[in-house]
Each structure stands twice: as structure tokens, then as C-alpha cells.
């Protein structure tokens, strides 16, 4: 009798444990199952389709070929770094010898001028996009606040904004290049011209969403809050600092997220066209190179570009959640 009861007890315990585990698993499944199925289906479709596409550079790369290129790109990077280390070691030895012979000799330190690896290009692109985006933000947010505060200024600027907003980066690029090479003349340049070209093009294209969203955010400030400010007789600058900017933070961030997305897309195109260092140049070089690995390498770059774009967006969203008082605004 006793044993039967204890077995029954254990059974119910076990079954309740089982349901608990089942529930946990199904929760996890709900979260991950969808994306996993989606990705697996996409990889299968990609692999099948790739086999059936013949190009002059061989078959279109499937997922396996791209993965292989990731390894190879990393190996290239490591090899290039080794070469650089060796170069500097040889240089040091050589200089030491010269100094030993002739103490008055001042050793010359030369930079290693090997080719930029895939990882170097990623870093260059990230720096460029951030610089371009920051320049745009520094111009766009104050301008947006000004436009939002004054309907008169807004109506003056609006036609210009509407016309420049849809312009493709590729149309700006030649103009930017010519202007930069004409005006940025220096024997000891602080940054490379190519960097400036890409950066300015990125800025020009990512200005607009920030300007527009900021101005809308500022213009839609609640009348009640304006009245509070008027009753308190807040000076103009305090009004902007204490009321206008905090109130429009959610809209400013929406604009910044849109702008950063555009900035990243524009940058790749600008680098391709202008041959400025970066991921865009990597893609273009591989295309010109035309080896049997080229397509797989380009595809690897595509994946990386997409992934970085996604991370940039997530990063911006996190920043918005930290900075914004309105916790609902960063929901999407």
C-alpha cells in the first residue's frame, strides 16, 4: 500500500516536472523556432539556386563556399599581419646595425605598405560611416530644432530639403570629389582625401531624415508644455534645453536610426564608385579581380555588410532606450 502511494506520488512529481520542462521548451521554441526555420529554409534555397546559376566566374557561390571564404579571408588577414611584423623586425635589425656602425645616423622608420585586408576594410568603413553620421547629426539636429521652432524658417528651408532629400549619393560623389581635391590641399593631410570624399557623401545623404524628424518632433510640442514654459518665462535657450529637446528626443532618435541606416547603405556605394578604402572597395576589387573565389568573397562581404547594418541599428535602438525618457518609443 505504502509503496504504491509513494510510486504514485513520484509519478505525479515527475509528470509535473515534465510539463514544466515542456513549457520551458515550448517557450524557447516559440522564440527561436521561427527564425531558425526561416534561416535554414533560406540556406537550402540559396544552395539549390546557386548550383543552377552559371557565371563566367564559375558557379554562383553557395553557403558552403562563402563560409570557406570567411576562413580564407581571416587567414589572409593573419598572414598579412605576420608579414607586417616581420617587416618591422627586419627594419629594426637593419637600423640597429646602421646605428652601431655610425652613431650619428638617424634611423628611418618606414610604414609597412601591404594591402588592406578584409578586416581592415571593415574597420575603415565603420570609422567612415560613424564620422559621416556624426557630422550629419551635428548639423541636422540643431537645424531641425530651428526649423521646428520657427514655421517661417521651416517654410524657407522646406523646398530645399524636399529637393535634396531624394538625391542619390552617386550624384553627389563627383561633385564632392572635385570640391575636396580643390579645397583640401595640405602637405601633411590630417585625414586622407578618400576618407573625406566618402564621409561627406555619407553626411549629405544622411542629413535629411534627422532634419525632418527633429523638426517634426519640435513642432509637435504640446501646447500645454509651451504654456508651462511661457508662464515660467523661461529664456529662449532654457526653453530649448529644458523643454524642447527632451520632448523631441524620441523623434530625434527615430530620425537618427533612419539616418544611420541610410548612411551605411550610401557608404558602400560611395566606396565602390570612388575607390575609397572600405568594404565597397573590397567588393569592387574582387569584382575586377575575377578569380574563381571572387563571387564567394563578394557574397561574404554582402553578409558582413548586412550584419553590420543590423548591429548598427540595434546599437542605435539600445542608445535610444538608455537616453529616452519615453520607454515606449524604442519598442520597434
Amino acid at each position: 500500500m505504502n509503496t504504491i502511494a509513494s510510486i504514485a506520488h513520484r509519478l505525479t512529481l515527475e509528470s509535473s516536472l515534465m510539463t514544466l520542462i515542456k513549457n520551458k521548451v515550448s517557450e524557447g521554441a516559440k522564440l527561436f523556432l521561427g527564425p531558425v526555420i526561416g534561416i535554414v529554409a533560406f540556406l537550402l534555397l540559396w544552395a539549390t539556386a546557386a548550383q543552377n546559376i552559371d557565371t563566367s566566374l564559375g558557379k554562383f557561390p553557395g553557403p558552403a563556399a562563402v563560409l570557406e571564404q570567411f576562413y580564407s579571408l581571416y587567414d589572409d588577414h593573419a598572414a598579412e599581419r605576420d608579414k607586417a611584423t616581420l617587416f618591422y623586425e627586419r627594419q629594426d635589425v637593419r637600423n640597429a646595425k646602421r646605428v652601431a656602425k655610425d652613431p650619428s645616423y638617424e634611423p628611418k622608420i618606414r610604414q609597412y605598405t601591404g594591402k588592406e585586408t578584409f578586416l581592415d576594410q571593415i574597420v575603415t568603413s565603420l570609422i567612415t560611416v560613424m564620422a559621416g553620421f556624426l557630422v550629419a547629426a551635428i548639423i541636422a539636429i540643431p537645424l531641425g530644432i530651428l526649423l521646428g521652432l520657427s514655421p517661417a524658417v521651416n517654410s524657407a528651408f522646406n523646398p530645399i530639403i524636399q529637393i535634396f532629400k531624394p538625391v542619390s549619393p552617386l550624384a553627389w560623389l563627383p561633385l564632392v570629389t572635385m570640391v575636396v581635391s580643390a579645397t583640401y590641399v595640405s602637405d601633411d593631410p590630417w585625414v586622407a582625401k578618400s576618407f573625406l570624399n566618402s564621409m561627406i557623401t555619407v553626411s549629405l545623404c544622411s542629413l535629411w531624415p534627422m532634419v525632418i524628424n527633429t523638426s517634426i518632433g519640435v513642432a509637435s510640442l504640446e501646447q500645454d508644455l509651451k504654456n508651462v514654459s511661457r508662464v515660467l518665462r523661461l529664456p529662449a535657450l532654457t526653453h530649448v534645453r529644458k523643454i524642447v529637446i527632451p520632448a523631441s528626443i524620441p523623434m530625434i532618435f527615430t530620425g537618427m536610426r533612419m539616418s544611420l541606416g541610410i548612411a551605411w547603405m550610401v557608404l558602400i556605394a560611395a566606396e565602390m564608385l570612388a575607390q575609397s578604402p572600405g568594404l565597397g572597395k573590397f567588393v569592387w576589387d574582387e569584382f575586377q579581380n575575377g578569380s574563381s573565389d571572387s563571387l564567394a568573397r563578394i557574397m561574404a562581404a554582402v553578409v558582413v555588410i548586412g550584419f553590420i547594418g543590423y548591429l548598427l541599428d540595434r546599437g542605435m535602438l539600445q542608445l535610444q532606450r538608455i537616453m529616452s525618457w519615453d520607454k515606449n518609443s524604442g519598442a520597434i
Partner: protein
Amino acid sequence: MSIILDISKIDMVFPTPKGDFTALKEVSLKIAKGEFISLIGHSGCGKSTVLNVVAGLYEATRGGVVLNGKEVKEPGPERAVVFQNHSLLPWLTAYQNVELAVKQVFGKSKSKAEMKQWIEHNLALVHMDHAMHKRPDEISGGMKQRVGIARALAMEPEILLMDEPFGALDALTRAHMQDSLMEIQAELNNTVIMITHDVDEAVLLSDRIVMMTNGPAATVGEILDVKLERPRNRLQLAEDREYNHLRSAVLTFLYEKQRKVESIDSKKSLSSTPAQKEEATV
């Protein structure tokens, strides 16, 4: 008693696409120091417009407002406003909301420690000292309104303007708030103009009830003196003959005398004229 505020013959005309709309016509009112005045009337009769003119948020088309011998031309902290829907800055805590006002008004005359003490004193006055570091979205509607009142009181206004301060609250919270306001009033003896829809609230709180006629061209209809003794207790007053008499006087004005004016014609003109626009912006 000395007259602190003189509203003299103000007209308010709003331009609309269909022509001018006269919201107020020859509104006159003199208010003594320490008086609690209620403005009561049907929706859209221009009560809020009167308050906004006194606040300086609107400029009267004709006539003017004189406070302590000076004409009102722009808004200012000596005419603090408690807005209908609290109007707290949602990104600041209760304390910081009051601080913004205190810094602006007393930034030069009070030291940091004095300001801190003054902010805390005002929040304690409205019984919000326990939640002063909470943000507006973390506290209830009644509590937000308390903070709004603390912010207005902290400006040490010469006159306190309240635009239906308890209109958006439930009946129980509203009763609490009215009691709190009477307590504060007993202590500080502020001059107050309060807009209300609520007849009981008007009789309970006021020294005088100013009843406005229906718009367009609304004006002061009747003024009722409320000579009930203070402190007032809502439970005792419910049985009080004088209280009930006053209550029915206000009700008679609103539902008999002013109802007749509200013919179909005026209703039509109300719904198609900027009465609504005015409501929306107020």
C-alpha cells in the same frame, strides 16, 4: 479688502475663416486679495478664455486685466496656472518639475539649500513628499495634479489660476483633492480663480461663484456670495440649509436661466464656430 485683480470689460474675438467669432463680451470682475473665486458655466462658454487672458496666454481684443496696479501683457510666474491635465514634463520627476519653476523664480534670491527646502516644503504641502522622486508616468492622475499644484504654489504667485484642476479625476480622488486644497487655502490664503463644471465643488471651495452666460459673446451672468463658515466640512454641509440654497441657486442659473438661451440656433452656431477650436487649444 483691497482689490488685487481687476478684469475690466474684456472682449475676446477669434478670427475664423467664416468671420470673427466673439467668445467674450464685456467681461468685468474685481477680485480681492485672498479671495477664492469659482468660474462656472456650460462647456464652451469661454471660462477658459477668461483664465487664459488673466494668465496672459491670450491677449484680450478689447479691455484689459490689471494685477496689483500693473497691466497684464504676457504670462508670468506671479500668475501661476494649474492646467487641466497637469502639464508636468514627463521626463522629469515630481521634484525636478517643481525645481524647474523654483529655479526660474527664486534662482537669484534663494540659495541652493533654501531652494531644496522650499521644493520639499511645497511637495509636502500637497502630500507628495513620499513620491517626489517619481516620474509622472509612475504616479496616479490625482498625484500628478497634486504635483501640478505644488509647482504653481512654489512660484509664490500673487494669484493662482486653476483650469478645471480636478476635472479629469474620479469622484473620490476629486473629493480628496478638494479637501487638500481647502487645507492649503486655510494655511496660505492665496487669491485663486478656479474654473469648474462641478456645482458642489464651486460651493464648497469658493468665497464667490461667478456664473457665466452661454457663448457666443459670453459674459458674467450672476455672482453669488458664499458666506459659509470655514473650515468647511462636506459631510456637515450636505445637511446645511444655506449650502443647499446656494447649490440650488447655481443649478437654477445653469439649467433654467441659461438653458433658455441655448436655443437650436445658438447650438448650431456653437457647433460650427470656433467654440470647439477654442476648446481644443485651451
